[in-house]
């Protein structure tokens, strides 16, 4: 049976892992390569590296860091941040990334999703969507939640799927950093609406939140950062607890 995936997310800035509460007030949580290796040992199913400053500062993700990770890691990983063209994605693929995640660049140029899927296959293309509730509507936001767009989250995700996205990484900006649980209502709506995998993100603070998101929604994976980085939720403990609730996990 296909397992539900547990994905630690490593936000990277200047080659170091950071995690902000609501994307402000950054804390240093260590070396990405070492963290990645530790997570693989603990039983993480996959990793996501997001260069959180990339979009804002127009920086390219560090190819050398990706290579170092690929040399050490025996599980898949995704790279996001600052990918705006085919050449960026190709460099990351050749450095050993399994998937790339695009966010703002896809909103600004939706054709990029189709182009990437055409060249590398849709399994390589994760579309990350940051969403926030504004006057009762779920609206896509950019630049770590700083910038609202005119796109409704549900419509944009459907469009991304139609264009060739292989997976959706959906982060609720209202929940992110709060540790009050995932946005299960929206995640269930999205998961039912599309036929590609969905990664839940934003709000994980306790083991129960993971159980809740897997039992009440159809998401395929759950992503979190600080609860893993600071050892608040050890991955083996989390997976054993999920298994007790008959949620398929890899132990």
């Amino acid at each position, binding site marked *: 049976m296909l397992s539900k995936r547990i994905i630690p997310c490593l936000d990277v800035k200047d080659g170091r892992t950071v995690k902000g509460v609501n994307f402000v007030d950054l804390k240093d949580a260590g070396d990405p390569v070492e963290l990645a290796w530790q997570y693989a040992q603990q039983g993480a199913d*996959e990793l996501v590296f997001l260069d959180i400053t990339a979009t804002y500062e127009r920086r390219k993700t560090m190819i050398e860091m990706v290579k170092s990770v690929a040399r050490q890691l025996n599980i*898949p990983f995704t790279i996001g941040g600052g990918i705006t063209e085919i050449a960026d994605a190709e460099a990351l*693929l050749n450095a*050993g990334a399994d998937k790339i995640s695009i966010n703002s660049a896809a909103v600004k140029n939706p054709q990029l999703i189709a182009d990437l899927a055409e060249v*590398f296959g849709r399994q390589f293309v994760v579309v990350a969507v940051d969403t926030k509730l504004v006057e009762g509507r779920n609206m896509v936001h950019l630049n770590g939640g700083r910038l609202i767009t005119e796109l409704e989250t549900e419509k944009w995700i459907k469009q991304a799927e139609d264009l060739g996205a292989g997976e959706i990484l959906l982060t609720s900006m209202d929940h992110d950093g709060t540790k009050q649980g995932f946005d299960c209502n929206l995640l269930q709506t999205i998961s039912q609406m599309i036929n590609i995998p969905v990664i839940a993100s934003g709000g994980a603070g306790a083991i129960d939140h993971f159980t809740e998101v897997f039992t009440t929604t159809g998401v*395929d994976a759950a992503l979190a950062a600080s609860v893993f980085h600071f050892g608040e939720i050890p991955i083996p403990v989390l997976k054993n607890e999920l298994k007790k609730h008959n949620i398929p996990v890899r132990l």
Partner: protein
Amino acid sequence: MIGIVNYGAGNIFSLTSALSRLGITYGMINSEEEFDQYSHIIIPGVGHAGAAMDKLNKSGLVDKIRSLTKPVLGICVGMQLLTDHSEEGDATLTNIIPLQTKLFDKELGIKIPHMGWNNVEIKNNLLFEGVENQTQFYFVHSYFIEYNPIFGIATADYGLKYSAAVQKENFYGVQFHPEKSGAAGERLLLNFSNLK
């Protein structure tokens, strides 16, 4: 020493990294003559099976691959290339193993691509020596090779039972990515390198 068929179908950095971690030496194969330098051959591949077959045809190495008697391992799309035909691009493939590569049917209530860790039902086979039955491997694919009791050496379930690994004589194929499948995947690569 493992030779990797270098026909331009996708990234092999993760594969070579895994071999390096295991202390398995390897080199790249770009011409027919270079096959002779290696005891074992890997055909990698990601992306579109039809496009990958075009590249393999252009490499001029297909007839040589068909004639090989040393162990050959196709990984993911590299495995699919060993089959007769893929629905992806309606492509005619090498037909080294007479099986069909088909698109998953979303009517089965599954998400496509099949992405993540799935259990593998293993038959007794040297490729899986030391790997427990029902071990999970990492898959990412939208097309699958039909189940076949003769050539199938491992199966996975995703909407239906299909071939997770196949073998015909010295030709092996795995649909999952051993280089991304943790310790079990590394064991499989080591087993392959030890096949006689």
